[in-house]
């Protein structure tokens, strides 16, 4: 009962309360309060995440599985960043309270934590992000093939937009007078027409569909019809 019924009750009750709270004047701030709670909960949950990170990597190191050296690097980087961040090592003291070490600013470029952010974290993440430039190219080559009407529309639209994005578009069609009957052949015109009318309509319908999907999913959960989130059998580890 404690393992199945209580969680369902908690879920139904908290869901229903949040729906009603939106309509009750004195309860409008509840969603903010709950948001703060969940941020704290997520912070506490890091104990689980960090624990898992440690277990997995320590296990790899101790059993000398292939690639254990990388696990050691991960752990070293993790503990270094965690230590300089939590203890604010090398932080710049707060001018108003120079005696309180932990009030210092640990995120400036002058502290080890800020240095790590500027020269390790940030270049790594932004280069990872920048890899997308390569993948859009390979995806365009591979996936934009005119196999049927649907794919012709997909690649045709992408083609028009790509052309219109650069000077090539104006070079090719810029000579068509703007006020003329053929102005719709101008690439810049086509780009605006596609984004403003067709894309807006498509995105609107997708959004309406998603909203209904979210609502139905929420209802399935609140009404206790979808119970797939519940654990079954023995204790969790």
């Amino acid at each position, binding site marked *: 009962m*404690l393992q199945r019924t209580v969680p369902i009750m908690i879920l139904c009750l908290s869901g229903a309360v949040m*729906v009603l709270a*939106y*309509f*009750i*004047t*004195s*309860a*409008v701030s*509840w969603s903010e309060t709950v948001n703060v709670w*969940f941020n704290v*909960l*997520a912070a506490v*949950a890091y104990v*689980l*995440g960090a624990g*898992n*990170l440690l277990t*997995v990597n320590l296990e790899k190191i101790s059993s000398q599985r292939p690639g254990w050296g990388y696990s050691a690097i991960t752990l070293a980087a993790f503990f270094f960043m965690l230590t300089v961040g939590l203890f604010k090592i090398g932080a710049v003291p707060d001018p108003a309270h120079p005696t309180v070490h932990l009030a210092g600013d640990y995120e400036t470029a002058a502290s080890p934590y800020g240095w790590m952010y500027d020269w390790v*974290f940030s270049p*790594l*993440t932004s280069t*990872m*992000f920048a*890899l*997308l430039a390569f*993948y*859009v190219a*390979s*995806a*365009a080559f*591979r*996936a934009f093939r005119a196999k049927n009407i649907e794919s012709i529309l*997909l690649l045709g639209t992408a083609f028009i937009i790509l052309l219109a994005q650069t000077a090539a578009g104006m070079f090719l069609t810029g000579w068509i007078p703007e006020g003329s009957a053929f102005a719709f052949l101008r690439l810049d015109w086509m780009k605006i027409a596609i984004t403003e009318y067709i894309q807006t309509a498509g*995105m609107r319908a*997708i*959004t*309406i*569909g*998603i909203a*209904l*999907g*979210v*609502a*139905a*999913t*929420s*209802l*399935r959960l609140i009404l206790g*019809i*979808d119970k*797939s*989130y*519940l*654990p*079954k*059998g*023995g204790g*969790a*580890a």
Partner: protein
Amino acid sequence: MTATTMQRSLTTTVAAALLVLSQPALAQAPEAATQDWIRTDRLPLLLVIVLVASAVAAAIALARSGRPVKIRRLAALDAVDEAIGRATEMGRSVLFVPGIQDMTDIQTVAGVTILGRVAKTAAEYDAKLEVPTCRSIVMSAARDAVRAAHFEAGRPETYTDANINYLTDEQFGYVAAVTGSMVRDKPAACFYMGAFYAESLLFAENGNSIGAIQIAGTAEPSQLPFFVAACDYTLIGEEFFAASAYLSGERDQLGSIQGQDLGKLFAAAVIVIGCALATAGIWIPKLAGGADALRKYFGG
């Protein structure tokens, strides 16, 4: 015994918290008394919510009463069994990515419920299922869901926590680790179900390069183009939310999908009537007022 006391203490704490929460309101009681305690400005919204909710509830009730439930096939979901079967034959693993958001995003909740269904099939086939997560709480929820799936499949002994791991909260750190393990372990089937941002194409292109069958589902409109272009099957927006109900095969859940259709009918009706009124309003101003009122009601 400990559980009951814990539960009792929980109830008292929650009650105390609720009391405290309402305190600011009590403090302002003199003015509050003269004010509405209900947000009357939000009543139109309440009406629409009740309408949508009752449509879903009615569809569920109808399904329960034994009325046949017909749902069109979703190719992406029919491919789930095939993809896992193929992975089993090839002796390779199955990768499931539940998005990069926390459980506070309903897409992640939907992703984890789909994970449960996928895990059940994987357990039946005895395929290895890898679930890297970007959040600690998602890791916990995913472990619960996969363990439950193994129980349902009648193979609790094959479950292990070891394949469901937290990596890092950082979007691109997570991507680096998952794409790295993709090219090393070469899973034969990749599922991307949840909230995705820029990483969608990074996953999909790397998955393609290792020859995996890729099935994606997300309600993040900006990432749909990349999944549609680069994956074998994509659940688009609403289809993604219908997927977990569809895969469950339960009458109640399938009924709720029909409820969603009623909601779309309602939306289409409002749009048709509204546009007709607005068009007629070009000549008959009174009707244009009707269209304006409709638009205003919906906050458009």
